[in-house]
């Protein structure tokens, strides 16, 4: 239980610090720390496979790309033109939407934490082997799995098209 609180605290504090940083490089690193703590939580839940995949995919692959982009753009400081004293609801559209989403998230969290009573412990699932995960993924969850892969493919094609568009436009 001590470990749970330790990993939980690291995850929460690192996530909060991600958005509190001015320097995007530090944000990226703190996000990696947060992912690492989440991976620790998965280990505590007897899911070593998910824990390691979390490190490989998120902390390893995706965040390296993030870091790569941040370094290439070389944006040392995130300058904000906004007056921080103005009430969030009075700021431009995107921020107003963000405020609504944040309020919704907080409401949801409060609901989730109060809906279940503290004593209700859930049954730990059976120790899942990699083979079982694979079989479930390609039978019971084949549809969501394929939809996710198509979604990623669409995002990839979109990114290529957007990058290509600029290059072609430059030549014309």
């Amino acid at each position, binding site marked *: 239980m001590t470990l749970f609180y330790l990993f939980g605290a690291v995850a929460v504090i690192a996530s909060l610090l991600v958005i509190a940083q001015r320097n995007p*490089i530090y944000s990226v690193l703190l996000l990696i720390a947060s992912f690492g703590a989440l991976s620790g939580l998965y280990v505590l839940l007897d899911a070593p496979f998910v824990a*390691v995949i979390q490190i490989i995919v998120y902390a390893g*692959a995706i965040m*390296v790309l993030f870091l790569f982009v941040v*370094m290439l753009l070389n944006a040392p400081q995130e300058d904000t033109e906004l007056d921080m004293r103005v009430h969030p609801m009075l700021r431009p559209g995107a921020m107003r939407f963000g405020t609504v989403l944040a309020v919704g998230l907080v409401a949801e969290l409060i609901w989730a934490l109060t809906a279940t009573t503290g004593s209700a412990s859930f049954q730990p699932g059976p120790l899942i082997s990699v083979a079982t995960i694979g079989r479930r993924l390609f039978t019971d969850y084949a549809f969501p799995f394929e939809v996710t892969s198509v979604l990623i493919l669409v995002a990839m094609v979109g990114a290529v098209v957007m990058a290509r568009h600029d290059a072609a436009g430059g030549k014309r």
Partner: protein
Amino acid sequence: MTPLLIAQIALTLIIFVALLSSAAGMVYFERKVAALLQQRLGPYLVGPKGLLQPLADVIKLMFKEELRPRAADPLLFALAPIISATAAFAAFAVVPFGAETTLFGLLDTPLRLQVADVNVAILVIFAIASMSVYGIVLAGWSSNSKYSLLGGLRSSAQMISYELSYGMSLASVLLLANSLSLTDIVNGQSGTWFGFVPRWFVFLQPVGFLIYMTAGIAETNRAPFDFPEAEQELVAGYHTEYSSMSFAMFFLAEYINMVTVSAVATDLFLGGWHGPFLPVSLGWIWFLLKVAAILFFYVWMRWTLPRYRYDQLMAFGWKVLLPVSVLNLIVTAAGVLAFGL
């Protein structure tokens, strides 16, 4: 404290010290082999046959001044070598290097010759390999120097490109072994075919072995793939601005990574501690011999092949190595389905 726990702690300490001294040993080995290949003598003045040369190098590095560029990011500049060295040590934790032993009957329960027996060991190694990129990238960025930055960027691009092929070659082995645990994989390679050919996976996975070795060279930033530190273009790449012990940490990480890649190759493809003539309890001698052979191969490569061009490296990674490794994985999967290996 049970005897097993004491033995486990002692073993962990031994592995730690062995890894540290393996880096020193590799420096000497590399210089001697390089001298052999270039018809020179190599280090021979410090100690008998120059054996104390690494020690002299370490002492020299310790007494050097620790420099930091004024424009560097102090925190990340200090953190980067630590990340590199830590990742290098951590990866070896899941590598088994010998059969279970009771230390001549001293222990009731047999001791596994590894720090931690994780049942997803292959993935752990892969995960730590992907984390070690950060040390190099951050070193490049935090130095605030163009050579360092270019070195760091190249390294991250290179490691991302070769990690895919690296992972695919690992996947083809675990298809054959039907397990993610390195101990199980090694035990799946015991015995012989026709009485004399050892059942090593290198004979079932020759392509996978070649892919692993190539990607391993790229992952450890060794010549002919040592672009992050290409001297002619980038001075010394990501560690241009480092001096003294923080430079030594990168050096240490590079050699320990080499040892780890070789040790994993031994476990995955060369039958780990299985070999003829020796009893199973002394299997670790076979393991060390095989690792030494692969390390010699690495050094030999470095002093034989010239460095590629950077675009050649990327084209090779994406257009040759990745398709071949995907094809290898498909053929392996089909073979396992058809013959139930």
